[in-house]
């Protein structure tokens, strides 16, 4: 289906939970509330017209004002691809794990926890694995993280 067909189909099927973001990119980008993530993920996987069976990645973002978690999903069978994200506040940032929908989300969620500190409920194994073994300096990708040998690019 074309991009517009996809957008209209998703907006009709998930009326309240989805909001379309205008990014100007080729693939649609939707905004979801954090509590609807698991249900939405399961629905798009099971939907016969979408069949999104491939989770490309889960990324964390720190915009300076809030956290975001971006899910990029694709379908091997229908060749559709789109992204959706949630916005989380800095305090008590938590999302539900989507491992039951796509088992490959295990490591992505572990990475999001490790680098941002966003807690993932029902994950089962939130331990450090990308950073060095003796890492004790917190969650490095946050905007307010600092370390003695860490230098930010100076403003021009």
């Amino acid at each position, binding site marked *: 289906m074309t991009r517009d067909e996809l957008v209209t189909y998703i907006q009709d099927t998930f009326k309240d939970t989805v909001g379309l973001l205008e990014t100007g990119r080729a693939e649609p980008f939707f905004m979801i509330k954090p509590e609807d993530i698991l249900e939405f993920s399961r629905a798009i996987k099971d939907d016969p017209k979408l069949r999104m069976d491939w989770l490309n990645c889960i990324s964390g973002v720190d915009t300076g004002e809030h956290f975001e978690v971006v899910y990029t999903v694709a379908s091997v069978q229908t060749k559709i691809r789109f992204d959706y994200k949630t916005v989380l506040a800095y305090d008590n940032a938590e999302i539900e794990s989507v491992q039951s929908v796509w088992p490959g989300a295990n490591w992505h969620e572990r990475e999001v926890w490790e680098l941002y500190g966003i807690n993932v409920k029902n994950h089962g194994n939130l331990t450090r694995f990308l*950073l*060095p*073994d003796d890492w004790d300096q917190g969650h*490095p*990708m946050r905007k307010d*993280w600092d*370390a003695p*040998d*860490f*230098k*930010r*690019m*100076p403003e021009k």
Partner: protein
Amino acid sequence: MGIVKKVPVYLEKIPGGSFVTTTLDYVFSQSRASSIWYMLFGTACCAIELMATGASRYDFDRFGMIYRSTPRQSDLIITAGTITKKMAPRLKLLYDQMAEPRYVIAMGGCTVGGGPFYYDSYAVEKGVDHIIPVDIYIPGCPPRPESLLEGCLALQKKIKREKMNDWS
């Protein structure tokens, strides 16, 4: 090794002994410089340039340099690629497991001083001389094979200047 360490000192006391010492210096250092076996240590993009330099157009073998996979049989470690904080203890152990005389060439911007990862990186060790002592620095991102060859020739010149008195 205990006997040979004292030989240059005693040799130079004999009249004409320093001729022997300098000839032996020349022989040993020339042989060491003409046959530097480097360890295949490539972590990132510079490894591709290392492989290209070892391939047919910019050959390493004509300088006597062949690759060895294990530090036990190599004289030189060319750190080709970014060294992260997680990799640093492993690199130190690999350097420790090389037999003397051993040399290090820091290839590429990341190993010289952080390179493109100097700003805004939490995981990169900014400069491989925080971990192991370096003999030659080759800047570039990645350095062209000609650059790497010039660095190896500079290392050969450095080895040829060594004297028996300085052996550890």
